[in-house]
């Protein structure tokens, strides 16, 4: 059972590799040592193998830069993930290894800092791994940006050859997008979402680990392109320039493939987790808005990312093989590249923004001590942005020479996106109104975000208005817009999120003073850096130029100075995070007095998050309602003497065998988790209203597939409490009701009653909704209908208030 593993001591777990077999040497177990030699081996096989195939099978010259590079990098990536240990469990299963055990939690949870440098399947560890890795690439991308600003500080060509300069801004954008903004939200989501849902982990923890370990490969490939002739076609990598580019092109394309695969796998993981692993009572309309945002984002990733992967493969084929997808001389089309590319890359803008919206919704509600304003409208606007996001891609192509008629519909859809976005902004401000606002660092970042994002959103409307876009597209106006939405939007929300969840992630408080200093410098430097770029663009300064007319010199100098300040402000954050993690004040479990589930567990969170699935009973944002709760979390006492569980105990009160009143209609009610809910009681009352009836309620307890049940006695005691509540309610309504908790599985329990001396005339089966009901998953209702031939009414109960608990 999963939760039993949680009770093992950390020491046992950390070293319980391979189901307790002898510990393998460092060369053979998943580690950086093994990763190094396996990667080298795969790289060598890739390079030599490709050359051998070329030479001996096809008779070509052995070395061809593009082909050999591509296969070598593909195998290097595969070799690294194998070497580090992402595939060990699957390989073990595949070959029937004696080390393989089904419930292998040996790589789950972090007990020392070293565990953060290994393959780990704990979503919380993976979340932190993501955050640190992506932030590293943020710093590298930022350094590239500072190099760009140094070059642009004065007109003319100063420090970099044109090809290097083109590489700087291309890799800057690519790192920031593919290695920072997109994956850091996956990192935050990884840490927070399963906790928020009341789940023990993500749906596919091992896939989750693989997703993470593919990511740094993408970044390293992209950066290494500087050594072979930098990738210099801009992050959009438009063909045919992409096809003609230097050798670094291939490194970049392979980097995008790894980052993209990582992104898709994570998104699938999030989707399955959110849809299937919500705690009981967590209806869609009770999900925190960050979960909604992640649901929409993951859908966009799954549907969109294959398009960029495809577009880059086509570029690769045009380069390596005699294909002509984008070569007009060979019958190809140049513009089709842009359609495929933007079909991903516009939704990518929302992939980079929606999770930030979710973070802001959490932060603002919690730190304003007020329910989020217009919860449903915000959730629906998130979905609307996701849907509309797929209908606007060609607004990047208003001057591309695509079919002219296509511009107007794309303009309309683009402008429509302003509406759900506006709804969110207005709702956030309305949430703050009349609140009790604690201006902590995350809240300051959230407020700063609203300020900058309004500007970014409005400049987006400028760009949507077609005639205006014709003038400013591909100028610094676009550079200003993208940085207002990605820095002023995404990055500020990322900071808000990291500060907000830092106490839960590390168990330490960050330094509030440094946090506020970081905010104010970042906020002003960001606006001073990017605001003047609007003007430059309006004047007609192209983006992606190394040299520009002297008239723009002073403004560019100003921008460069503030860009350096902005870069320096990031170091305050790095220092604050590192030092606070190391020596910060210990954080309480719920420093913000938040209602959502991630704050209801201990800090640091237990390895499997929850001892029992929490019972969600209300809105995640019911601030201001005294005593309101989002969920009831049951925490097991640390040392319950593991009392032997009686094999089969009639757990219920002594059966009330009264006189059988055979003239009364006998209704059998079968319910377990849902017993005690008002819905069930009402349904039984209705059913029993027509004629004299008596009711027998049975609660079948034994559910072999239910891995959640960890302490049968306690669960049975709770069920008994709810059962007696139900029976009381029915008796009050004048219905003769008896009930018992039975230690059988539901199917057998029903048959027991049907075949007894007192068979029922009708059966009511009450379950949780389809997605969460173990009974429905085993088709209980249909099977019983077939077997008993009795009328069976099936009631779906979604809410179960009044469930007893110890918190």
């Amino acid at each position: 059972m999963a939760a039993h593993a949680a009770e093992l001591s950390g020491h046992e777990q950390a070293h319980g590799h391979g189901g307790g077999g002898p510990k393998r040497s460092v060369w053979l177990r998943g580690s950086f040592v093994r990763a190094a030699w396996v990667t080298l081996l795969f790289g060598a096989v890739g390079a030599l193998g490709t050359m051998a195939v070329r030479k001996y099978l096809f008779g070509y010259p052995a070395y061809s830069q593009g082909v050999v590079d591509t296969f070598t990098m593909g195998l290097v990536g595969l070799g690294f993930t194998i070497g580090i240990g992402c595939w060990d469990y699957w390989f073990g299963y595949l070959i029937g290894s004696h080390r393989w055990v089904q419930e292998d939690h040996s790589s789950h949870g972090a007990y020392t800092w070293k565990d953060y440098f290994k393959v780990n399947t704990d979503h919380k560890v993976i979340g932190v791994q993501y955050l640190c890795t992506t932030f590293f690439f943020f710093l590298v991308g930022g350094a590239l940006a500072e190099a760009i600003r140094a070059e642009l500080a004065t007109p003319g060509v100063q420090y970099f050859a044109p090809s290097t300069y083109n590489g700087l801004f291309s890799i800057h954008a690519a790192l920031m997008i593919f290695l920072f903004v997109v994956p850091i939200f996956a990192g935050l989501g990884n840490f927070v979402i399963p906790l928020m849902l009341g789940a023990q982990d993500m749906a596919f923890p091992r896939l989750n680990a693989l997703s993470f370990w593919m990511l740094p490969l993408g970044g390293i490939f992209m950066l290494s392109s500087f050594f072979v002739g930098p990738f210099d076609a801009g992050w959009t990598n438009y063909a045919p320039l992409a096809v003609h580019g230097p050798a670094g092109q291939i490194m970049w394309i392979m980097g995008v493939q790894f980052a993209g695969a990582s992104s898709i796998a994570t998104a699938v993981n999030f989707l399955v987790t959110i849809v299937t692993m919500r705690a009981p009572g967590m209806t869609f309309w009770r999900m925190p808005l960050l979960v909604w945002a992640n649901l929409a984002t993951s859908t966009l990733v799954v549907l969109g990312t294959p398009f960029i992967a495809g577009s880059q493969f086509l570029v690769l084929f045009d380069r390596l093989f005699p294909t002509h997808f984008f070569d007009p001389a060979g019958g190809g089309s140049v513009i089709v590249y842009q359609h495929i590319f933007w079909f991903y890359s516009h939704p990518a803008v929302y992939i980079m923004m929606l999770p930030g919206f979710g973070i802001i919704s959490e932060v603002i509600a919690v730190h304003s001590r007020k329910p989020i304003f217009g919860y449903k409208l915000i959730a629906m606007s998130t979905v609307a942005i996701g849907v509309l996001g797929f209908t606007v891609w060609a607004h990047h192509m208003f001057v591309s020479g695509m079919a002219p008629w296509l511009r107007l519909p794309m303009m309309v859809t683009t402008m429509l996106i302003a509406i759900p976005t506006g709804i969110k902004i207005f709702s956030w401000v309305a949430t703050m109104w009349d609140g009790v606002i604690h201006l902590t660092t995350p809240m300051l970042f959230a407020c700063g975000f609203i300020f900058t994002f309004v500007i970014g959103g409005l400049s987006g409307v400028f760009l949507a208005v077609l005639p205006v876009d014709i003038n400013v597209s591909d100028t610094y106006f676009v550079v200003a817009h993208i940085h207002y939405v990605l820095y002023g939007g995404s990055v500020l929300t990322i900071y808000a999120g990291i500060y907000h969840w830092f106490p839960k992630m590390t168990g330490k408080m960050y330094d509030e003073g440094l946090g506020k200093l970081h905010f104010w410098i970042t906020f002003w430097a960001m606006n001073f850096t990017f605001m003047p770029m609007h003007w430059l663009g309006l004047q007609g300064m192209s983006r992606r130029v190394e040299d520009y007319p002297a008239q723009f010199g002073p403004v560019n100098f100003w921008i460069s100075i503030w860009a350096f300040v902005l870069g320096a402000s990031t170091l305050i954050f790095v220092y604050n995070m590192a030092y606070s993690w190391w020596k910060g004040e210990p954080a309480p479990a719920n420093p913000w007095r938040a209602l959502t589930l991630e704050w209801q567990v201990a800090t640091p969170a237990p390895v499997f998050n929850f001892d029992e699935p929490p019972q969600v009973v209300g809105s995640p944002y019911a601030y201001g309602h005294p005593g309101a709760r989002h969920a009831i979390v049951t925490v097991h006492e640390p040392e319950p003497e593991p009392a032997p569980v009686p094999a089969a105990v009639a757990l219920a009160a002594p059966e009330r065998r009264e006189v059988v009143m055979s003239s009364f209609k006998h209704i059998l009610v079968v319910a377990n988790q849902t017993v005690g809910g008002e819905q069930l009681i009402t349904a039984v009352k209705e059913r029993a209203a027509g004629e004299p009836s008596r009711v027998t309620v049975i609660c079948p307890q034994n559910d072999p597939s239910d891995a959640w049940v960890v302490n049968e006695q306690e669960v049975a005691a709770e069920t008994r409490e709810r059962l007696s509540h139900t029976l009381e309610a029915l008796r009050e309504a004048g219905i003769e009701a008896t009930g018992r908790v039975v230690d059988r599985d539901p199917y057998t329990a029903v048959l027991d009653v049907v075949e007894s001396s007192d068979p029922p005339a009708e059966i009511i089966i009450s379950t949780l909704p389809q997605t969460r009901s173990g009974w429905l998953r085993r088709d209980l209702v249909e099977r019983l209908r077939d077997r008993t031939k009795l009328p069976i009414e099936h009631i779906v109960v979604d809410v179960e208030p009044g469930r007893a608990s110890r918190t």
Partner: protein
Amino acid sequence: MSALKVGLVALVLGAIGTVLLYVTPSWFPVQASVQAERQDELYQWLMIMSSFIFSIVVTFLIYSMWKFRAKPGDMSDGKPIHGHTVLEIAWTLIPLAIVVGFGIAATVVLDRNERPAPNRLIVDVTGQEFYWTFHYPRANVTTGYLNLPVGRQVEFHVTSPPHDVIHDFYVPAFRVKIDAVPGIVTQVWATPTRIGTYAVICNELCGIGHSQMRSIVNVVTPARFRQWIAQQKRTAKAPPPSSGGGAVDAKAVFTQNCSSCHTLAAAGATGTVGPNLDNLAADAAKYAPGESEDNYIRDSIENPGKVVVSGYPNGVMPTTFGQSLSKGEIASLVQLLATKGGT
């Protein structure tokens, strides 16, 4: 203050922003076409809309941050307000009305900007790595810069050769822009309204010479334009020069074809994409010892991949000069480069 009062303050601030838009110096670069005037007007309306929206959001934001901030030790909660249906409908429908309005305005402006006039002048524009060529099909004149008559609509037919990359024909003063795409011909319209000289720039990343890929457009009176066309025709009709001939203006050929990438003091060129041609003699001695400098230059023009100066990547210089330049032009270039304009 009630929400209503804060809202009023926000509207007043938005109005002040609008007034500032009109009393401060213009944000726009020089307007030299009808299209520019219409676009700038639309832009101005967007600024006014933005002024109000920005004021409303930021006024409420800052007022809330100040007014509702928690006093130290205040552990209470705010009011349990979950929403307000009328307000939520309002802030869905009002922005909808605004974007519908701008959608209609944009469509009207676009339609008027792109409606071809019957007497329009057609100019073929070709972007190549890294220079522009302009062709006047009716007069059959080809130049490296644009000359346009004021007041007459121009229809640009823009393209790029099949083996080239995407460029973007952009005249900021006209506010017109369209990609030069290999394999297709794109169109854009401008009606110049102001006599003067303006920049033509490449606005789509096209490789390492991108920021140098510039030309100019002269807007002149119709009379001057006719004069210029006639003069260009005479030049074009001039008999092809004999080898080393003087009829071709070598510096003009250089300026049009080479100067965006190469430095040559004699031609006043300062491009930095390709090797500095003032050092050409040294390079020739280094890379082609024993060969005549003339041959080295000719080879480098016609077959640029044969010898590549170290520090400069291969494959950047177009390989099409052997075809696009006449024999006379190449000869004149060779002479110019060999002598550095000394003779």
